[in-house]
């Protein structure tokens, strides 16, 4: 998925990736990623957790709007565990 992000970005489409497996996603160096402590299969948020799902998407959008350079990361802090 990081390679897709890079391919889109190289042709002018801004991207943000959500990752729950940061060693894997980071290995290919995506332009922007939001790293969340969530499960594979629920990478946007837990079922029916509307606020959690919105939070993931809004953080991705915010990173697209505000990141200043390649490799930007917005990572859950420990309080989200």
């Amino acid at each position, binding site marked *: *998925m*990081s*390679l*897709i*992000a*890079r*391919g*889109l*970005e*190289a*042709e*002018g*489409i*801004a*991207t*943000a*990736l*959500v*990752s*729950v*497996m940061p060693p894997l*996603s980071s*290995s*290919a*160096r*995506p*332009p922007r990623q939001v790293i969340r402590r969530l*499960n*594979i*299969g*629920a*990478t*946007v*948020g*837990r*079922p*029916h957790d*509307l606020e959690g*799902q*919105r939070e993931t*998407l*809004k953080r*991705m*959008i915010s990173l*697209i*709007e505000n990141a200043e*350079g*390649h*490799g930007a990361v917005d990572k859950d802090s420990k309080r989200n565990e």
Partner: protein
Amino acid sequence: MSDAAQLDDWQPKFESWVEFAKPLLPQGKAREAFAEYPWFTTVGDPFVTLSKPASECRFGLVTTGGYSIDGEQEPFTGLPTFGDEVPEFRKIPTDVDRSKLVINHHGYDHKYAKEDINANLPFDRLNELVDEGVIGSLSNETLVLMGLQPNVAPLINETIPEILAAFKADDVEAALLVPS
């Protein structure tokens, strides 16, 4: 330098790894096989900034959730192999009849998506963000792949240009990528 330019260096390492890994997988030794996988090294820092606020931009969604539309689209088959098969994607209209969506990807637990599809295909949340003016609009189609693609060469050479063409045709300016 583009990622495609790095393939010449990577492909011999990948081919050696396939020789090593292929006999292990039928023995259930996937962990041992993938411990030696030659991760693809990217060079260069592609990065673009929006020329206007997100509230005025058209957003697209890419997911590796392996969804297809039952009875209308060819289902994805199995997990990707080690060959030169080009990873496919399906275009799912964002206003699709969700009762027709099936998940063909058996590499992750479907229980979350069955309970609430927004867990990994967040159509409702994205439509709300459009209604609230957080993003300008949502693309007509979401692009769905399978993920788990050990041979990145056909992905880089063929699938990614096709994804780009599909998004450009849909006037997408920014993309959200959700793996599963």
